[in-house]
Each structure stands twice: as C-alpha cells, then as structure tokens.
C-alpha cells in the first residue's frame, strides 16, 4: 500500500468513526495540534486518556460495589471521565457519562450499574478503534507521509 492509499484509508476510517458518533470534531482538532516539533502529541494524549479512563472505571466499579454506595464519589468520577471524553472527542462515551450522572442524582443504583456496563463497552470499543487509528497514522509517518487533515 502506498502513502496515498494509506492516507485515504485513514480518512475513510475517521469518517466512519464520525458517522458512528464514536469520535467528534474535537479529535480532529487534536490531530491538528500535532506537528514536527510534537510528532507524538496525539498518541500521548490518547494514552493518557486510556490510563485515566481505566483508573476511573475501576474506581467506579469499586464505589458501586460498596455496602453503602457513596453517590457523591461516583458522580465525581463520572464527571472526570465526562471531561476527559469531551476533551478527546469521545462523543458516545461522553453521552454515557451524561446519562450516568442523572442516575447518580437520583441515587438509582440499578441504573448506575447498567450505565457502568455500557460505559465499559463504549470504552473498549473506543479503545480498539483508536488503536487502529494510531497504528495507521504511524504507518503513514513511517512511510514518509503526513497525516491528512479532516475537513468539517
């Protein structure tokens, strides 16, 4: 596959992620911040996001498993994840957080547990998609090409 083909593949892939609502335009903004002086910016942000999110989801799981659930703590974790999701452009994950917070407000444990499950699924899906995306970007750069800019 030559660089041009790889670039097209990347753009098609990004478009599909946008259509599915998995990522939004914020992610494209982040890609535009990457340049020769910071060639790994997107990968660094994404990896930080993965670490952060996994910790938060673990904390949530623990918090919801307690005898007396501390909904304030749960809400605080979800708030953090919502902020990170929005910053990276993870639209569906962010929306899951929004629903989650409503159930925290209502102190509805069952609904929170369901949200947590949905959150875990959305996170895993996002993670696998971003891994592919970063992989293709790496290949393009290694072949001497540049990451194409998404237009909105």
């Amino acid at each position, binding site marked *: 596959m030559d660089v041009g083909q790889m670039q097209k593949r990347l753009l098609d892939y990004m478009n599909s992620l946008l259509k599915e609502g998995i990522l939004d335009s914020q992610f494209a903004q982040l890609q535009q*911040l990457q340049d020769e002086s910071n060639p790994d910016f997107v990968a660094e942000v994404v990896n930080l996001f993965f670490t952060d999110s996994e910790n938060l989801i673990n904390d949530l799981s623990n918090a919801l498993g307690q005898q007396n659930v501390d909904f304030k703590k749960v809400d605080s974790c979800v708030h953090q994840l919502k902020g*990170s999701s929005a*910053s990276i452009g993870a639209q569906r994950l962010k929306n899951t957080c929004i629903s989650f917070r409503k159930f925290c407000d209502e102190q509805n444990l069952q609904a929170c547990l369901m949200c947590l499950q949905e959150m875990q699924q959305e996170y895993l899906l996002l993670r696998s998609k971003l891994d592919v995306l970063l992989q293709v970007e790496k290949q393009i750069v290694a072949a001497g090409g540049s990451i194409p800019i998404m237009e909105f």
Partner: protein
Amino acid sequence: MGGNAMVKPTALVVDDNKLNRMIHGKLLDVLGIKNRAVENGEEAIEVHLSGEKFDLILMDRDMPVMNGIEATKKLRAMGIKCMIAGISSHSIGPEKEEFMEAGLDDYHEKPLTVAKLLSLVSKIKN
C-alpha cells in the same frame, strides 16, 4: 534565535483534569504563548501570591479544594486585572451567570479549540 524584543503574552491554565491541562497547554504552545498549569483555584492564588503574573488565565469552573468561581473572586479582590476566561461545560443558564459575575472577562464552553483561544488572545489587554 534571539534578539526578538517583542514580549509574548503568558497564560495560566487552571484545571483539575490532567488531559485538559495537557491539551490547553499544547494549544497555547502552538500559539507561541508561554504557559503553566495548576490543578485548582487555591494553587492559582498561591502562584499569584508568589509574585507571578499572567496576561491570560484559563479558569475551569468545577475543581476540588477551590473552584473557579471562588478563585476568580479572590483574584479580583487581590487586584489581579488580567484577562480571566471561564472554561466550563455549561453553555448557558445560571451556572454561566454565576461564573461571569465572579469577575470573568469572557467565557467559553469546553472543550477549548484553536478558534476559541485565538478569539481570547486577540482580546488580551496590553
């Protein structure tokens, strides 16, 4: 690279979210704005008490220890007159008003983008 007499503006990022600090810092870097970040309102106050000054403060609203509303009020009471922009997840309504009334010069909905930052930078008082 030297001998450039033009003074570049400086900025302070106040946000409890590590990812946001990283992204906002990078946005500022790209625009050539020297910047540093702190994690909450109290640290923002401490940095100013130690004598540092900035041309622009990007203030998150919801933070532990001291939130953006309190921090903005305190900074204004301390006589800090630079541009303070509130960055929050609420777009309209009482939350925004409360934050503006604390002493903000401008307000943007998260997440911050190059365009929003450019509009802030263009308004920096010299």
